[in-house]
């Protein structure tokens, strides 16, 4: 099932058009989205680095998670709201952008990784709270998180480039397929 008709409908709504054409609102929302990286991704990176024994070595892991989590949740909420608004302003092009798609998939992976960490090894954090060298599963969670967020940030930035846009034909068939471009002819 394609979400394209939904995106096309969304793009025709008044709010979407207003945000898309606004002189200051769109840049302000985008700036908030980018600068909140410092809060959300910045704090996540510090937690991941603690799991890897790189920084905050003398601070118990449970202390880092419990003290930083409220800030991370706050940051994530701002990123989510502003991110949804950015999508709302440009739905069709975003939907058919391979970097946007990559970003969403990686976001899901990052979410799964965080869930697995919290439901798994972090449940027994009492046993390794003060270890500089944390259990291998915790270190793996840190590495996967760092990798996911790096891909999410980079692909997010790349959405701005139109290299693989559907209106930049001809594109290789694989690009059209991954981006869900509706191309007349044999490509699809």
């Amino acid at each position, binding site marked *: 099932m394609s979400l394209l008709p939904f995106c096309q409908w969304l793009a025709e709504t008044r709010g979407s058009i207003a945000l898309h054409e606004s002189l200051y609102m769109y840049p302000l929302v985008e700036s908030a989205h980018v600068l909140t990286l410092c809060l959300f991704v910045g704090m996540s990176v510090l937690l991941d680095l603690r799991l890897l024994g790189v920084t905050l070595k003398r601070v118990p892991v449970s202390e880092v998670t419990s003290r930083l989590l409220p800030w991370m949740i706050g940051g994530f909420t701002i990123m989510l709201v502003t991110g949804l608004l950015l999508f709302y302003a440009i739905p069709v092009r975003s939907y058919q952008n391979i970097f946007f798609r990559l970003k969403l998939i990686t976001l899901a992976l990052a979410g799964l990784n965080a869930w697995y960490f919290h439901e798994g090894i972090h449940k027994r954090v009492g046993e390794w709270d003060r270890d500089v060298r944390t259990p291998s599963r915790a270190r793996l969670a840190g590495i996967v998180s760092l990798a996911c967020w790096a891909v999410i*940030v980079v692909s997010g930035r790349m959405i701005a480039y139109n290299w693989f846009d559907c209106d930049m034909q001809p594109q290789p068939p694989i690009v059209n397929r991954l981006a869900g471009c509706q191309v007349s002819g044999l490509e699809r």
Partner: protein
Amino acid sequence: MLSVFQSIEWSSVGQLIKNSPWAFAVIESIHLLALAVIGGAVLLVDLRLMGLGLKRQTVTEVARDAQPVLVWSLGVMLLTGIALFVSEAIKCYYSTPFWVKMASLLLAILFTFTIKRKITLADNATRNPALMRVVAVVSLALWFGVGAGGRWIGFSG
């Protein structure tokens, strides 16, 4: 001054980055990754100065731990930032946000490595909570100026 900026942009490095279809995008992505990390390191210390975040650790402990993260990410930031600047120096010359960013950056670096460093590394006994809050707010304001100015360079082109 303009001629200096012109010769920077017309240098071989400037032209190399400018003429590559992907170099700017890749360097900018790394610049952005470093932004997240530098922001985390600055926020961690500033929140602690305001009595938030890692409250059970002393200001000095938090500042000591955050220092290497800050220095490394700042290094990446400056290197990639210079590369981006070289590829569009003339645009930067005419960009108000660029100059706002450079002024904020200069002040932020000076403030972080002199006054803020001195306050965070002082004994607990000699530290004054009101002063710590002021230091945190000034630090946040200066770094916010750097980040917001940076984002705005792209909008004003």
